[in-house]
Every structure is written in structure tokens, then in C-alpha cells.
């Protein structure tokens, strides 16, 4: 169990100063994520250009892993389309849950700093909450489109 590996400088920095923090107005879609077990809450707002994320912001309260993961996510997905976001999430999920997964710094960038989480199974849900919330916001936007 390696504490330094979990709380890397990038994580602590994004926890202390989360990027893209605060509401986005106007937004094309938003979703709220809640982890009732630990009380973490966050909201993700999106501005979309077709199915590409033109802008993204988040707000909420949670532990360092949850906050840093959301902050890093907003930086990573800005400008990406849904398919690229989905592909990125699958790589992140593998990184978070498989201690043997190689953090591919070339494609994951700063998100690779979440690699230490895989040693702490109880904390995986902290890191994935923002991704589930982003996914809900993207789906919600699709629903909104489909009802028109």
C-alpha cells in the first residue's frame, strides 16, 4: 500500500485548485452525481457542438480522489466527441481497477496520476463518480435531442 502513489502531487494540486470548477451558463446539458455511501456530490455541465464537448465545468464536494478525478476529467475531455470520451473512460476504468494496467502516459496524460487508486479498491468509486455523471449528462443531452 503506497500512500504517495495514491496522493500524487497532481492529485493534491487538482484537489486544492480544481480546474473548470463552478457552474457553466448557459449549458446544453448537465447531470448530478451522488455517491450516497460517502456523501460525495457533483454536478457536471456541458456545452456541446454536435456531439463534441465544446466546454465542460463541474462543481461539488467530495474527497481528494473524487475532486481531482473530476478536475482532470474536465481538462481531458474538452474538445472530444462522445466516442472519444467513451474510449478514454474505458482506459481510465482499466487503470483504476487493474493494478497491472500500464498507465499509458502518452494517451492518458495527467489522468495517469490516478493509477495509484487501483491499490485502494474502496476508493475506485470516488474516482469514477465524475465519469458516470459525465455519461449521464451526455445521455441526457441525447434524450433532449431525441424528444424534439
Amino acid at each position, binding site marked *: 500500500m503506497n500512500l504517495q502513489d495514491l496522493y500524487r502531487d497532481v492529485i493534491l494540486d487538482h484537489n486544492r485548485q480544481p480546474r473548470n470548477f463552478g457552474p457553466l451558463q448557459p449549458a446544453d446539458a448537465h447531470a448530478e452525481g451522488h455517491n450516497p455511501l460517502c456523501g*460525495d456530490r457533483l454536478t457536471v455541465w456541458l456545452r456541446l457542438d454536435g456531439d463534441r464537448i465544446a466546454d465542460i465545468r463541474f462543481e461539488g464536494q467530495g474527497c481528494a480522489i473524487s475532486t481531482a478525478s473530476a478536475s482532470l476529467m474536465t481538462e481531458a475531455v474538452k474538445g472530444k466527441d462522445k466516442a472519444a470520451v467513451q474510449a478514454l473512460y474505458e482506459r481510465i476504468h482499466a487503470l483504476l481497477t487493474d493494478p497491472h494496467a500500464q498507465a499509458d502516459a502518452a494517451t492518458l496524460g495527467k489522468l495517469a496520476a490516478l493509477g495509484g487508486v487501483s491499490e485502494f479498491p474502496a476508493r475506485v468509486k470516488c474516482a469514477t463518480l465524475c465519469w458516470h455523471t459525465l455519461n449521464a449528462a451526455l445521455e441526457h443531452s441525447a434524450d433532449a435531442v431525441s424528444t424534439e
Partner: protein
Amino acid sequence: MAANCAETVRQGFDAERVRADFPILARAINGRPLVYLDSAASGQRPLAVLRAVEHYETHCHANVHRGVHALSQAATDAFEGARERTRRFLNARSPREIVFVRGATEGINLVAQSFGRSRLGKGDEILISALEHHANIVPWQMLCEQTGCTLKVAPINRRGEIELDRLLGLLSARTRLVAVAHVSNALGTVVPIERIIQAAHACGALVLIDGAQAVAHAPVDVQALGCDFYAFSGHKLYGPTGIGVLYGREELLAEMPPWQGGGEMIRTVSFERTTYNELPWKFEAGTPNISGAVGLGAAMDYVERLGLDAIAAHEQSLLAAATTALERVPGIEIIGTAAHKAAVLSFTLRGCHPHDLGTILDSQGVAIRTGHHCAMPVMTFFDIPATARASFACYNTAADVAALVAAVRTAGEVFGQ
């Protein structure tokens, strides 16, 4: 500081010897000696309990109240012996007042569904406090939905104490039942239940005490208290999980309908008419947790051998030492500063979420609980998502307190306090 604590703590109570009774405390966690400060969630078991359960399983097990064979009789004797042991532990009048349940949660649900559902209706009120564990909130909410009765909640103050005047002000002729914790699991507040019981009875209301956090920290005498129901869990009293006790005054239990149907709780069954068993078996449908009851009886022997007053004094000195030491750590806020507290220390560290704190402490071998402690309304009152909670038991020492404080300081450093 630590040396001073050690001196105070060792007087009259040898926690090091007590530790030797708990095999699990010898193991390492993350390469460090285990510092177990989560006994409010579940206590560890002494060898005496483990051996009693093993002896029962290897020498006495069969179903109870069933067969004519020797083992069935041995199992029945062991199970009913545990009931009599529990009667003595609580100073109840009769073993008929001792119902074995899965835990405090089931005991409270039993009262809600049996007493509440058969007796309460629209216009009736149940009074609880804002300090309660979800187990003493949700069963009453369910009952209100089922019967149309109303749930009233007495507020707490910033120290985490029930505002007694407000609670007394909520009592009226409509109040049918008052249900409060003896000790708050989230904050450690000791509730002045004697005063509440007296006032509730003066209004004609019954009183249920959730004693889950109390029985391991002070002697409980249900006759002296005068409460109508008292519920607790075995595993918070150094006993096994899956066994607990509901004490109820005999005249109340006798009038209450059964809440679960099945074997054991019946006298005769036909398709036309079923008659129910006597107390307490009327409330014990199905084969009970026999080995659990045996283990619980052994746990009562164990704590009474140590002396509940001596355990309480020992824990109080640890609580005082930990409170003083933690208050000196930059960024620490103690949540719950009641004048009377038992064995629980809830706190937050500025800039460090309780879950991060819990993970960092765990990496140092220190086990605490983090989260809302199944008391979300308490967290809402203090406007925090969660706390870190260290809780003390008979086997904790001044060295455990020192390890806790050192680990919290480490967390502060990681998070830049």
C-alpha cells in the same frame, strides 16, 4: 503528553492484559501494528467468546426446543442459559422479557411492526431526536406510512446534545412512543434518558431506548431506568454478529401481536386457527442464532469480569487524552462536544476529506470509521458530508491514542496543513 496519558490510563485497569485476550489485535495492517479504533462500528471478540462459541459448536449443537435427544436438550439449555444471562445483564425481571433478535435494528423494527402497527394510527405521534441512527428513524417512518401516525423530531444543539426543553415541549397526550438513543453513535453524546423516560411516562407515552452504543460502556439496569423497551446488538458488546436483544416489559410484550410467523413462535397450527407460543418465543419465529446467543452470554461474562465501570473509566481517560491531543493538531475540529460523552470522538481535518483521512490512517495501521455513520441528519445539522470517527474500547491504550494523533498529523502534512 503520551507518557502522561499512559500513567493516567494504567491506574486501576490493565489494558495491556486485556489486549492479550483479543487475538485479532496481534495482527499487522499494511505492515504496521493494528490500532483498532472502530469499536463503535463493531467490537472485536475476546478468546472467551470465541471459545464459548467453539465449545457450543463442537459439543452442544442441535436445534432448540425440538427434540427429545440429548443434544437438543444441551442446545436448549445453552440458548435459554444465554437468555437468563442477558436477563441478569440488564436486570430485567424475567427471562420472558428478553427476546433474541439479529441486532438493535431488528429489535426496533419488531417494536415498530408489532406494537406500533397494532396500536398506533392517525393522530398518534412518535417522538425521536435529531441525534438518532438511521435504525431509530427509518422503522418509524415506515410505521407512519403504514398507519398514518406522525413522526416528531426533537432538535440538537451545536454541542450535539438533544435540546431537552424542546423535546419535553414536544411531548403531549398524542405522544404514544418516545424512541431515543442511550449514546449517540455519530458523536458519542450520552443522552439523559432517565429524565426523558420520566417525562414521557408522565404523558402516558412508552419509551424505547436504542442502547446499541451504550451497553459496552456502562452498566444498564432496565428496572432502575424504567424504560419500556431497550434494544442492543451483540457485536458491539464484544459478542458475535447476527445476535442482539430486545428487552420489553412483560405486560407490553404479552399484549403485542407476533410480528413474524413460522416455527418456534406457535403453540398449535391448523388451517382454521393457529395459537401462539408464550413469551418470549412468540417473537422468535424460526430457528434462532443459537451459537450467537451463547457467544453473547460469554461476552457479558467477559465485560462483567473486567467491570463495566472500570471499562468506562478507562475509556473516558482515553477519550479525554485523544480530545486534548487532537485539538492541538492544526485544522482539527471536534464534532460533538457534549458535556457527557462515551468512547466516541468524531472530527474533521480542514482541507482533508474524511475519506482521505481514513485512507491515510489505514496506511498507518489505524482503523477508524469515516462517513455519515448512518446518521445523515446529524451530518446535515453540522453542514458536513461526513466525519472521521475514532471510538474506544476496553482494549485500547494510550499508545493507540498516540498512533491516532501521529497519523492525523501525517494526513495534515500530506494535505498541506
